[in-house]
């Protein structure tokens, strides 16, 4: 080790401070969910569970929640199919333009979100596709493909080809080999890629605002609407806990399934 004692103490202290910075806002929201003050006042004026009851009684939340789940499931399904197909093509064949595939897939994330949003919105209007759940799913799937692709291709690189060859030598055709050998090998990568895509879609708002139209609410759109007309702030604190759990729990599971590189797929 080259780092001197003082440098190491300094690094440890800086790490602590930065972790504190990363978690401070999340802790604040958690506390406000139990804060008696309806205006998010600090210090909290008292402890209450009232906002949880109000969130339960709120009739706008369940349909928005259903839409969010449906959009995330649809986008995840499309992303998994397209990402797996692209990963198998890139990993198993060499062809002209192979290096451009991953660039093409990462483009919807690398270009600013507002660009993807306005491009899809302008296209729906020009072509005449009515806004709704389907248009949300198309938008979300577009930027979720790269997550599924990254997870599957990382797994395919590590999987040995010999079991597939053995399967073929023993007389199994392509479909049986895929179902019994390739698929079980990819299963956890698909699961973690799917969980990450779900989490990303469930939380998305920048592209969704452009692709939802007036009639379709998702949980993030509902939260944003309330934040702009602050009449029900405490209910948002409760919803915030739900939103954080819906993004953090899938990611935590994905992380446990396939290790650090999986959840880093967003990066």
């Amino acid at each position, binding site marked *: 080790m080259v780092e001197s004692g003082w440098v190491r103490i300094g690094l440890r202290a800086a790490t602590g401070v930065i972790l504190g910075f990363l978690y401070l806002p999340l802790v604040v929201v958690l506390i406000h969910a139990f804060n008696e003050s309806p205006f998010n006042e600090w210090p909290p004026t008292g402890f209450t569970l009232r906002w949880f009851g109000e969130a339960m009684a709120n009739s706008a939340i369940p349909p928005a929640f259903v839409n969010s789940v449906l959009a995330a499931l649809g986008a995840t399904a499309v992303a998994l199919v397209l990402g797996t197909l692209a990963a198998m093509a890139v990993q198993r064949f060499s062809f002209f333009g192979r290096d451009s595939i991953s660039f093409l897939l990462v483009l919807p994330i*690398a270009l*600013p979100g*507002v660009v993807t949003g306005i491009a899809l919105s302008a296209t729906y209007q020009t072509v005449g596709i009515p806004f709704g759940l389907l248009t949300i799913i198309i938008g979300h799937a577009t930027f979720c493909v790269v997550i599924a692709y990254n997870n599957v291709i990382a797994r395919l690189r590590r999987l040995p080809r010999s079991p597939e060859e053995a399967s073929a030598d023993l007389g199994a055709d392509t479909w049986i080999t895929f179902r019994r050998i390739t698929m079980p090998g990819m299963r956890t990568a698909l699961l973690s890629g799917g969980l990450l895509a779900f989490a990303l879609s469930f939380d998305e708002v920048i592209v969704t*605002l452009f692709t939802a139209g007036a009639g379709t609410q998702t949980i993030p759109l509902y939260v944003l609407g309330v934040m702009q007309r602050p009449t029900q702030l405490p209910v948002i604190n409760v919803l915030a806990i739900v939103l954080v759990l819906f993004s953090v729990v899938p990611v935590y599971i994905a992380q446990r399934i396939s290790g650090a590189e999986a959840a880093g797929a*967003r990066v």
Partner: protein
Amino acid sequence: MTTDATARPAPAPSRGRRVATWLHARPRLQLRLLLAAPLFWMVVVYIGSLAILLLNAFWTTDAFTGKVNPFDWSLSAFERIATNEVYRTIALRTVGIAALVTLTDAILAFPIAYYMARVATPRVRAALVVAILMPLWASYLVKIFAWRSIFQGNGLLSWLLAPFGLDAPGTDEIANSWIVFSYLWLPYMILPVYAGLERVPSSLLEASSDLGARAGTTFRRVVLPLVFPALVAGSIFTFSLTLGDYIVPDLVSDAKFIGNVIYDNSTLGNVPVAAAYSLVPIVIMVIYLLVARRLGAFESL
């Protein structure tokens, strides 16, 4: 082989099996079948909508309904952007804040990434990776909402500043968006820099110090050049995400960013102006990505 199997006549190959055999002899067709759906989606749906966006920038809108008149060619959207000072100010402001956020995140990311890569034990390191991934994925809106409640007049910051006789910044200051953007995208910088630092061989640092370089010199002459591509890789996210965001400026400040102009124009029925103005972040990001590729950042993604 059992006698049983040889006694029976071989069953006629199933249809699936015949297709499999036929495909097996045609690897190019297999490749085309694999690529057809993903390429259709990315090229026709995604690149296609970027192309339609570009077309929209050259069309006009109906003065009464605000609807786009397709194929009614005009340069009026570009004229409006070129002649109105506000569009230039907003573009410069957005790029400036994006650069500032990128610099802030690079400075904040370095110590924690360095600690993870070179000081922490493997167990602590694994725990820290999870500890950084969780806030990265925790809901984007929730984090903005939290900062709003921290900045507001009777919030946490006002309580902390009161003993010093200072006021809370409120929710109008442009500095708020600098803080919130830096907060939101920090994990995107930490993770690639950590990965980059982990790849720096210890022997190089030891050689540098054996040859008499002090810690500062080793850092500047050995560590920084080796980690630079990783820093650029992280900066793609911090820069691009700031460039394309319109929620943060709307919720924690009253200063408009590029994203706000695009969103407002598209919802207020001026899609051609929104489309023309969206060329600004597209061009900036394409140049940024090309430069980043030259600097070797793509290998660090």
